[in-house]
């Protein structure tokens, strides 16, 4: 069950997208998010659909895998859909009990759902095609100019690396403790919300203890190897823009142009 969570996971493959510079991909993701919020009508999604589909195709990440990433946010999607559909005022087309479904609500609900879906798929493509180390390296590099105003870029990046590194470890640990308690007759799946919350204690206590233990061990191991922040650190793999990034740049330029084009002419 916990193995199904693919948000933030890296999908190793040898593709054009995987070989792009992490910094470039981060910037593109930002541009993509901004572009999503520029859209204010359905047909404007056409370039977005084409863009996302193309990237998925090139990245060699199976489509099924990306859909799986949407599963954990299903609840949010349904919630947002429900709120939009029932709480938007306008021309009523269907009503039961105290709930009215309006034409505008229906429109709004689908529109927002598409925005959310693209937001998740688009950004999860970043983590799916960029290894966590590359990602945080890229982020640190992008944040470097802000060091002058006192932003601890290296420390932030290191914290992110560690956090990302431990997500799968802690998920595995959760799975293991859950199974161990289930073997002792614990039931995590039935009962009302209070009972369920209470049934989480046997899971959460050991999980927290082990997370603190791991943090402690890691800090010790880092100190034993004389880690002291980002001063004068060099890297095994330095980030370098390549020809591929130029091709990518042309591609993203075309995408933005098409979004603007669609907005103006359609």
């Amino acid at each position, binding site marked *: 069950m916990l193995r199904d969570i693919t948000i933030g996971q890296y999908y190793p493959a040898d593709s054009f997208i995987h070989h792009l510079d992490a910094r470039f991909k981060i910037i593109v993701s930002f541009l993509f998010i901004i572009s999503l919020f520029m859209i204010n009508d359905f047909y404007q999604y056409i370039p977005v659909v084409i863009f996302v589909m193309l990237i998925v195709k090139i990245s060699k990440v199976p489509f099924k895998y990306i859909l799986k990433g949407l599963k954990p946010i299903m609840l949010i999607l349904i919630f947002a859909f429900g709120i939009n559909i029932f709480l938007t005022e306008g021309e009523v087309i269907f009503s039961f009990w105290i709930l009215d479904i309006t034409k505008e609500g229906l429109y709004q609900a689908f529109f927002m759902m598409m925005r959310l879906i693209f937001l998740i798929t688009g950004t999860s493509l970043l983590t799916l095609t960029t290894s966590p180390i590359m990602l945080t390296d890229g982020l640190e590099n992008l944040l470097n100019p802000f060091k002058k105003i006192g932003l601890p870029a290296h420390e932030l990046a290191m914290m992110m690396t560690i956090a990302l590194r431990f997500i799968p470890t802690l998920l595995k640990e959760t799975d293991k403790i859950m199974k161990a308690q*289930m073997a002792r007759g614990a039931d995590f799946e039935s009962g009302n919300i209070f009972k369920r919350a209470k049934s989480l204690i046997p899971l959460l206590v050991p999980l927290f203890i082990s997370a603190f233990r791991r943090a402690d061990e890691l800090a010790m191991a880092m100190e034993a190897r004389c880690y002291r922040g980002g001063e004068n650190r060099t890297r095994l793999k330095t980030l370098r823009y390549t020809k591929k990034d130029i091709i990518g740049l042309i591609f993203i330029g075309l995408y933005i142009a098409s979004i603007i084009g669609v907005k103006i002419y359609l």
Partner: protein
Amino acid sequence: MSISIKNLTYIYDQGSPFETMALEDVNLEIEKGEFVGLIGHTGSGKSTLIQHMNGLIKPTMGQIIVNGFNITEDKVKLSEIRKKVGLVFQYPEYQLFEETVYKDIAFGPTNLGLDKEEIDIRVRNAMDIVSLDFEEYKEKSPFELSGGQKRRAAIAGVLAMEPEVLILDEPTAGLDPRGRDEILSQIKRLHDEKKITVILVSHSMEDIAKLVDRIIVMHNGKIELTGPKEEVFKHSKRLEEIGLGLPQILYLVNALRAKGIPIDENVIAFDAIKSEILKLVGGKHA
């Protein structure tokens, strides 16, 4: 309580790039009252296999029949199975969570819905089996205990459910020699006295040789060898190839035998070998 496994296959992360075949067409019979050793290299599928036995993992293919019930069917109540098949995970002390040792050991029996008196009896019994003094430890926090004591408290937590089959995944990993011997002898005594079925997972040939009747050797998700320990230890070549080897003492015996010194092939216990050798040396030591 018998366990029968038929054509069991399990694939992790099916359909993702991390897909791995953890178990491949495993067939296995475990009889009531047996003391079985499950041995294999890290990643050979031991842990995955035992988690199938009380329904914690659903097989990708195949059947698991516990006491005549096919537990892979949907309508089977898994809580009934877990009551009968107790599973002690690797490093079980990491699952301790209660304020006191008593409460933690009582967690399993409480989940079974037993009444207070019955729970009390079971906690006392379980602590007695693992040699934790009831009066001294019942009110202590499990987190104050030493490593070996924590381990024993955690094992008691499973014993208190009074399972008919007890599965232990590397119960001695990370313990000092004394802690290891204590836990193993407690398990042995439990098996001898209560006549329960015990499946001991280990990669220590020494422990296995000392305790079990039958050995199941796993390699790359398949059962490589199975049989009485005397038989399995005759395949020393194959055991070495898959990175397991024999108990140290048997290397000595084999070397002696190669020199033409006759030692009975079926003697594998440390003490028995010792007296065999002393007998051969002759004189007053025998």
